[in-house]
């Protein structure tokens, strides 16, 4: 078991990389989808709506397979890591968009009017007034979404991305030590996820605290 530790730690690192890259994609994508949902044009709103519904209504595993088998069509063969980042990130983006949309109304319209009155451009108003408050209010839900994304990364093992679960499987296949290896793998996810879950709970409480303004 000890001799296999480097392989497992490498796997842990790949899991982290996968999570961070997919999270960045999900934030960028989520913001874009949110913008599409705020559009005045139905031709922009409806595709965004369908995207959200499809992503939230079908299994991530299926989405991963579809992306994995579609990549060769655009000339990207044998890139499991890319497929995993795309699948996890694009899936999570739909949830991020919904979270941001739910918190879009936390910003008092008076503030937007005030920004206009003192001559802030619409773009600046959006970036400096709306977005920061929206993100602050969304923090607990975004953290929750981040842990869910982290817990979805083992799916990448199915397309042979050498992340934590896959490393565990490699070792098990060679040594038949399923119990120790799997417990280590589970502990690895616990170490990554538990602090974030606890942080999310703390933020949730500060948002809900009576008299609090939802900003901690």
């Amino acid at each position: 078991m000890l001799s296999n530790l480097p392989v497992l730690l490498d796997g842990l690192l790949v899991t982290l990389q996968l999570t961070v890259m997919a999270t960045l994609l999900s934030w960028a994508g989520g913001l874009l989808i949110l913008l599409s949902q705020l559009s005045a044009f139905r031709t922009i709103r409806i595709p965004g709506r369908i995207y959200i519904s499809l992503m939230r209504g079908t299994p991530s595993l299926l989405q991963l397979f579809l992306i994995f088998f579609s990549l060769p069509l655009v000339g990207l063969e044998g890139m499991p890591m890319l497929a995993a980042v795309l699948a996890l990130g694009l899936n999570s983006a739909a949830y991020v968009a919904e979270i941001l949309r739910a918190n879009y109304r936390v910003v008092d319209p008076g503030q937007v009017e005030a920004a206009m009155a003192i001559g802030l451009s619409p773009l600046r108003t959006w970036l400096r007034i709306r977005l920061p408050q929206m993100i602050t209010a969304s923090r607990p839900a975004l953290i929750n979404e981040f842990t869910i994304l982290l817990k979805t990364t083992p799916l990448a093992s199915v397309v042979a991305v050498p992340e934590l679960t896959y490393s565990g499987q490699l070792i098990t296949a060679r040594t038949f030590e399923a119990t120790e290896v799997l417990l280590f793998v589970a502990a690895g996810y616990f170490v990554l996820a538990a602090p974030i879950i606890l942080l999310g709970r703390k933020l949730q409480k500060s948002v809900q605290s009576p008299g609090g303004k939802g900003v901690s």
Partner: protein
Amino acid sequence: MIDLDVVVESLPGLMDGFLNTLWLCLVSAILALVCGSLLALADRSGIGWLRVLIAGYTLTALSMPLLVLLYLLFFVLPEFGVTLSSNVVGVAGLALYYSPYVSQVILGALQAIPEGQFEAGKALGVPQTRLMIRLIIPQMLPLLLPSLTGLLIGLIKDSALLSIISVNEFMYASKVAVANTYAPLEIYIVVGLGYWLLTGLVDELLRKLEARSSRHFN
């Protein structure tokens, strides 16, 4: 490019898998609801060591990926002499994975009920179960149903993971179909539409139930 013949040819197998997904999800959802309610009740019991135990279990379960949980049940239990069929492992895994989420949702809804109502019930001598069924649960339902709907849809989607431990459900049937026809895109698109319809239908039905359950509150 899209060849519909391969889909038609695989349809019987896919239908079979779809029906298996339906009942696997139904059984694990009911189990998760029961276990989640028990966890919530135990958490409210106020017994110190029990609450610590549940807090530990909840945190462990919430930070464990479903796939790892399934592997643990599938590969580690046999080493302790407990060999379960893959169907049982799948259902138990889904139920274990979702019960802490259910318990959190229930605890959240319970918190929204003013403590005075429990005290009033006690003062009037209404038995605890009667109080829960007639007063507390009807008030909790409008709060519970949207979150439970989300969890049920999550459970249906996550049930696709059972294919990895070769439970013969929808996703597994689609893998078999892909292996037979070498047409992954066609098959997976059709299967995706199947899941989409199922989750959409569940969403729609439970939304109706939610509207019904909150009709006295508006």
